[in-house]
């Protein structure tokens, strides 16, 4: 086609386009057929009327074409190149050609489009038709169904009718049966009554016969008659007795009613109390809230006034409650009822509010809330789990530590706290010990001095004794006599010496006591001439171990610890102390004994 379009204008430009045109038309009918639509716009009378343009009518043709072009809205006007000649001014003619071609092409394209559209339309038409037929089928089907249903309905109705008739007959039957039953029952009861009457008659007759026969066997045989259980004598039946019985009966009835009334009164009072309290609480609940939720409307103010009135009424009823008169009760009940109504209204209002709020919450928040809740829960659970694990681990570690022997660090750590305490205590004890030591030293010094003095004294005494013995020896002539005398003397001396010992043993506990309480404050021994010798002291010291145990227990703790601290030194010092105060004591005793 494109070929043809390109050749077309060339032909025309050559000038013999009409021939070419004709030839085209004649020579290629197939082409013409193909382009039938194209030529349809051109006058078909082309061939019939002969050529459109001839040599003679060029200007007419031109003017005609110009008119046509004008009509088509193309401004280019074709002019003859020369008024005489057959040639045309080629430029406007070509332009017009071109324009025409453009138009033609546009038309062709639009035509094609329209064709396509038509095709589409036809296909949709087909589809719609198909659909239509299908729907028609369906309609037919449903119509058939409908008729079928109509049929079944009719049948069912028929059935219902028969069933209803059945029911009616059944009902009739039931009625009949019931009537039969009723008649039977009446018959039965009638018969039963008749039988019963007969039986009663028979019984009557029987008893009559038995009475008439004077049944000898009918008898009571009692050894001796018994007294009444209440001890009273039986009395005659008199009118008085019957009156008494009546009276007693009514008395017991009255008692019963009184008792029940009492319980009822009690119960009533209890209930009233409850009611009163309820009312009070209701007033309490209702009164402060009234102004805030319902403030503005006139209705509310009226209600408030009402409630005030009620409160007064309530008070009044409370006052008259004890009288329990009808009026008061009514009033109380009424006021309670009103209060209750109010409370109910209030509750309803609250309820509706709550539901409103809830619905609001529901629409925007609830789901999220739940999610967050769940998240939170999950998180917390995890946390708890972690904590548990942590605790478990700690426990395990602790267990391990306890199970395995203490490693140095922990031991040190543990010991540290103990040792610190211990140190403190030791320091304290050490201080005490130091103090004691000083005291001991002082005592020791005193003791040594005393011992020295004692030694000197003893020496003097020995000398005295020697001189005395010498004298005695010289004085006494018989040897035995002198001997006995000396022995008795020795005894006496010995007794003197042993006296403190005995005292020691006998007064062990007080001594201990004194030693514990007054080890340092003992009075300084005032040495007299008759102090015992060192041997005496040693002997007394030898006694010490016996008493030491008890003394130990009685002594303070610090002393024990000190003895542990520096063993022999402590012991020594102790011994010294003991010997010291012993000596002091014994010396004192001696003094006393001597004095």
């Amino acid at each position, binding site marked *: 086609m494109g070929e043809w379009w390109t050749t077309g204008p060339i032909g025309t430009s050559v000038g013999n386009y009409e021939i070419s045109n004709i030839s085209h038309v004649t020579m290629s009918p197939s082409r013409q057929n193909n382009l039938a639509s194209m030529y349809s716009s051109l006058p078909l009378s082309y061939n019939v009327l002969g050529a459109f343009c001839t040599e003679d009518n060029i200007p007419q043709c031109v003017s005609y074409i110009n008119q046509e072009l004008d009509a088509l809205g193309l401004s280019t006007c074709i002019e003859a190149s020369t008024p005489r000649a057959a040639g045309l001014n080629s430029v406007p003619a070509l332009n017009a050609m071109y324009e025409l071609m453009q138009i033609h092409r546009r038309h062709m394209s639009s035509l094609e489009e329209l064709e396509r559209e038509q095709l589409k339309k036809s296909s949709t038409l087909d589809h719609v038709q198909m659909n239509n037929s299908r729907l028609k089928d369906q309609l037919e089907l449903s119509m058939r169904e409908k008729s079928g249903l109509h049929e079944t309905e009719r049948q069912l109705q028929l059935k219902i009718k028969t069933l209803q008739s059945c029911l009616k007959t059944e009902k009739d039957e039931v009625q009949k049966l019931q009537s039969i039953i009723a008649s039977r029952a009446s018959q039965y009861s009638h018969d039963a009554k008749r039988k019963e009457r007969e039986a009663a008659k028979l019984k009557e007759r029987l008893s009559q016969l038995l009475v008439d026969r004077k049944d000898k066997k009918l008898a*009571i045989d*009692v050894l001796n008659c018994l007294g009444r259980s209440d001890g009273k004598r039986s009395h005659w039946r008199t009118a008085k007795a019957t009156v008494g019985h009546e009276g007693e009966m009514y008395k017991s009835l009255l008692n019963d009613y009184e008792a029940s009334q009492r319980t009822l009164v009690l119960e009533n009072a209890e209930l009233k109390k409850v009611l009163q309290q309820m009312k009070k609480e209701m007033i309490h609940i209702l009164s402060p809230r009234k102004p805030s939720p319902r403030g503005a409307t006139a209705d509310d103010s009226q209600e408030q006034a009402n409630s005030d009135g009620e409160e007064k009424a309530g008070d009044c009823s409370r006052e008259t409650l004890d009288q329990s008169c009808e009026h008061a009760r009514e009033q109380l009940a009424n006021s309670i009822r009103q209060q209750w109504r109010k409370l109910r209204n209030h509750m309803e209002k609250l309820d509706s509010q709550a539901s409103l709020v809830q619905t609001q919450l529901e629409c925007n928040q609830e789901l999220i809330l739940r999610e967050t809740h769940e998240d939170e829960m999950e998180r917390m659970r995890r946390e708890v789990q972690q904590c548990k694990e942590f605790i478990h681990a700690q426990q395990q570690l602790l267990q391990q530590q306890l199970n395995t022997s203490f490693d140095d660090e922990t031991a040190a750590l543990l010991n540290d706290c103990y040792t610190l305490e211990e140190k403190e205590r030791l320091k304290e004890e050490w201080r005490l010990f130091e103090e004691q030591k000083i005291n001991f030293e002082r005592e020791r010094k005193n003791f040594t001095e005393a011992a020295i003095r004692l030694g000197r004294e003893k020496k003097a005494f020995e000398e005295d004794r020697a001189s005395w013995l010498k004298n005695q020896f010289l004085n006494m002539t018989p040897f035995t006599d002198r001997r006995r005398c000396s022995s008795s003397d020795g005894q006496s001396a010995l007794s003197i010496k042993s006296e403190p010992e005995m005292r020691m043993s006998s007064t062990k506990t007080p001594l201990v006591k004194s030693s514990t309480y007054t080890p340092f404050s003992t009075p300084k021994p005032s040495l007299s001439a008759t102090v015992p010798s060192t041997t005496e002291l040693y002997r007394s010291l030898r006694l010490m171990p016996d008493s030491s145990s008890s003394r130990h227990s009685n002594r303070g703790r610090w002393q024990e610890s000190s003895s542990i601290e520096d063993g022999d030194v402590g012991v020594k010092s102790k011994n010294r102390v003991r010997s010291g105060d012993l000596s002091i004591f014994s010396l004192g005793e001696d003094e006393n004994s001597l004095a």
Partner: protein
Amino acid sequence: MNFSEVFKQSNQLCKVSPDGKYLATCVQYRLVVRDVSTLQILQLYTCLDQISHMDWSSDSLFILCAMYKRGLVQVWSMEQPDWHCKIDEGSIGLVSSRWSPDGRHILNTTEFHLRVTVWSLCTKAVSYIKYPKVCQKGADFSRDGCYMALAERRDCKDYVSVFVCDDWHLLRHFETETQDLSGLEWSPNGCVLAVWDSCLEYKVLLYSLDGRLLSAYSAYDWSLGVKSVTWSPSSQFLAIGSYDEKVRILNHITWKKITQFEHVASINSTKAVVYKEVEKRTAVGSDDLSLHNITIGTTLFNTQSKYEICPPPVQIPVVKPDPDRANPKIGVSTLAFSSDSRYLATKNDNMASVVWVWDMQKMSLVAVLQQTSAVRCFQWDPRRPRLALCTGNTKLYLWSPAGCVSVQVPAEGGLQVQSLSWHCSGDSLILLGKEQLCLCYMDQEDK
């Protein structure tokens, strides 16, 4: 818990005197009276024939022995063993004999209920009350012994006569609104008389002592009605057991229904404890771990309990009664209030192996005792809330709010406990077998 040795008895006639000192048992035609504490024989009386009924007088001084076949009643004195009394009803026959509350009169009902003969032991006087009604419970004495209510039938109508027991004076005589009166019972305070109709009609009527109708109660129509009626010891409740397997509780002020206890086959309530008796044979260890085996017995009675607590959804075996037979085995036939009116024990006849215990304060089911065999008899301790029951085997079962135990009766040859009754002190229990009896002493320290 200790058991005495086994003694012989016949006709299950064995009663402790009202003062709790003596135990009277009948062996064929002999009456044996023992001391309750030592069980030594105090008196031995010989009657003229096999004893069919025996009863103590209210003052524990006399014992009545009735020989229904011979129409004879013999009375024995505890104080004077040689004192005797014989009452012969003659050819008119005898079907029932009982003491009056004062213990000085004997009321004999003759055959065919022709009359009630009142014999006075004080004056030898005899009086007759005609037209007594043949029914479940036709006569009742008030608790204080002042009045006797007697159901009568005259001219096809029911009447109730109220007598003063003191001198048998007819105090009141009134017609009742019943079709066929079946029973009557005084309230424990003696002021209200409950009267109920036969099972064909559910009707309970309450009359005042002076014959006024206080109230009438009917739960439903057209079905078998009242089966049993019991007052609570406090006179506060009237329990009515009926054929519809329910117990209805009426109050004493309005005489309206407070509540009703239903005996349903499946128990879903978690509040009620279901004790199921399990018979352990060789396998001691229960395979079912969900069942919790209670062993209170080790501390309380030194016997292992064979009860197991079942978790809530419990299905109770139900026997369907034959609808074609009269007196169908369905409905609540036995009702018993504990002495403090706190608990109510019931038995529904189509669940014969189950005893139900209801709490009267909470108005709810407390415990269900499901036995392996049908419950023969149950009775409350007269002092404590403690229920003893037997099922005709060699075991004694006890329930208290604390728990439930079963105790093997260690009698030689196995005492099959048919019936039981408490001593009035609540310290001992008399277990009656077919031909034997045995005393069971409760431990003092347990509650």
